[in-house]
């Protein structure tokens, strides 16, 4: 028996491709998400928009809340821990969480170090803004990468920026000669071996998902067309006026992201999306994406 290997961790990430992972704060929301076709749920105590509004320290969810959600749904259950807070991650692993998100949405516990994720049998997903950040997280053991975007903003602009940046940097790496890859690894701040791997594969060595600001079916389609392999929707569903219908619409648009007619059909008849924030309304020191490095 060989469990908790990197191969097995990436295996689950592979199975979540082409799907939607939804933030939920209780078992009822988890049921709505599963019924709408979510391929996984992310259990957290407050959705990012409320964390942003309420302020204070944001921590790992209470175990009983996670257990309640696990009892409610049959799809994988993910949960967030604070950046660098490996004890929270140990607790989540003990609860048999299917994926741990070491997330900038929660208040960081360590401003210098992320978790050494190879020590865990549970797989991890981490956010990134660029290729260097993605590869640093993979070197620490992340089995899935997502864009950071700007969580809780309802504004897709940062997720687009981060996905465009990652995809452009991947393309650049594939054109470089071996000797140039060493300098590129230095510039990216990433291990040479992973930079070489990206150059050979033409993509990240783990699945690459989108997160942070997705609020509409068309937002999901946009991120998929930019190269995301799945999407995370946080505040966008349960901050909208019709969570169940919107959740289903985002799932349909993600499946048929290349078929504008079906995205149009999915977008029809929905009530208001979450209000959202322009980036000029979020002072730089309050931007969640600046947490972690």
């Amino acid at each position, binding site marked *: *028996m*060989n*469990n*908790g*290997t990197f*191969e*097995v*961790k990436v*295996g*689950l990430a*592979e*199975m*979540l*491709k*082409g*799907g939607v992972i939804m933030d939920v704060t209780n078992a009822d929301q988890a049921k709505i998400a*599963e*019924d*709408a*076709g*979510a*391929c*996984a749920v992310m259990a957290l105590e407050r959705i990012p928009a409320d964390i942003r509004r309420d302020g204070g320290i944001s921590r790992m969810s209470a175990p009983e809340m996670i257990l309640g959600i696990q009892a409610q749904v*049959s*799809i*994988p259950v993910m949960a967030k821990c604070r950046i660098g807070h490996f004890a929270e991650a140990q607790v989540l*692993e003990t609860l*048999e*969480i*299917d*994926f741990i998100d070491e997330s900038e949405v929660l208040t960081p516990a360590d401003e210098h170090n992320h978790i050494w994720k190879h020590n865990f*049998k*549970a*797989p991890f997903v981490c956010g990134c803004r660029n290729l260097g950040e993605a590869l640093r997280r993979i070197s620490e053991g992340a089995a899935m990468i997502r864009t950071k975007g700007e969580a809780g903003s309802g504004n897709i602009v940062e997720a687009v920026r981060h996905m465009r940046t990652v995809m452009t940097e991947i393309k650049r790496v594939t054109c470089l000669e071996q000797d140039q890859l060493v300098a590129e690894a230095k510039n990216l701040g990433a291990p040479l071996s992973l930079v070489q791997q990206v150059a050979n594969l033409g993509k990240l060595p783990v699945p690459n998902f989108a997160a942070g600001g997705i609020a509409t079916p068309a937002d999901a389609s946009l991120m998929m067309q930019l190269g995301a392999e799945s999407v995370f929707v946080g505040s966008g569903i349960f901050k909208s006026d019709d969570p169940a219908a919107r959740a*289903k619409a985002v*799932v*349909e648009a*993600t*499946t*048929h992201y290349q*078929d504008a007619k079906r995205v149009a059909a999915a977008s029809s008849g929905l009530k208001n999306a979450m209000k959202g924030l322009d980036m000029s309304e979020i002072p730089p020191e309050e931007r969640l994406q600046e947490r972690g490095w």
Partner: protein
Amino acid sequence: MQGNFSLHHDVFSRLGIDSIPIKVQSDLDLIDGLVIPGGESTTMSLLINTFRLREPIINFGKDHPVMGTCAGLILMAKEVQDKRVQSFGFLDISVERNAYGRQIKSSTEKVLYHFGLNKKVELKTTLIRAPKISNVGEGIHILGEFDGSPVAVLSGHYLGLSFHPELNNIDIFHQVLFDPNCEYYYKNLKQTYAA
């Protein structure tokens, strides 16, 4: 729909067989065989209903080879112990979803597989939140077992696997169903089993 299409496309490209993703009914007119990949069976089942693919797939499966891995196996089963999933009933088996446990229990094992009477081979077997085949009906050939339960079953032109050969770059199962030039192609095996 939803799931790990891309690694199955990689297997087919190694075998020199063309493959496309199936998302709408008319896509079925373009293909000779179907793989239902791993993913979340609840999600796949919902999308299949929403986009009215249930009947077309059942009809397609009557006279075309269909292979299912993990969630795909669940969708192929006659009986699923979870009412959230509506299956096609291609294979006369009962399955229990996630019966091997949550992700932390997911693992890579080594399992001995039999292809016909003469070919035995030990292969890596990666089980990801895998379903368990709890019962098999008449006419089901068990190709391999782990921990007392079948993990690979063949019945006519239907092949169901509770694990993921595509994660370990194993091509033989795809050959069994889709490669007529292969010694272990299901029609060749059928004669062996009949004998």
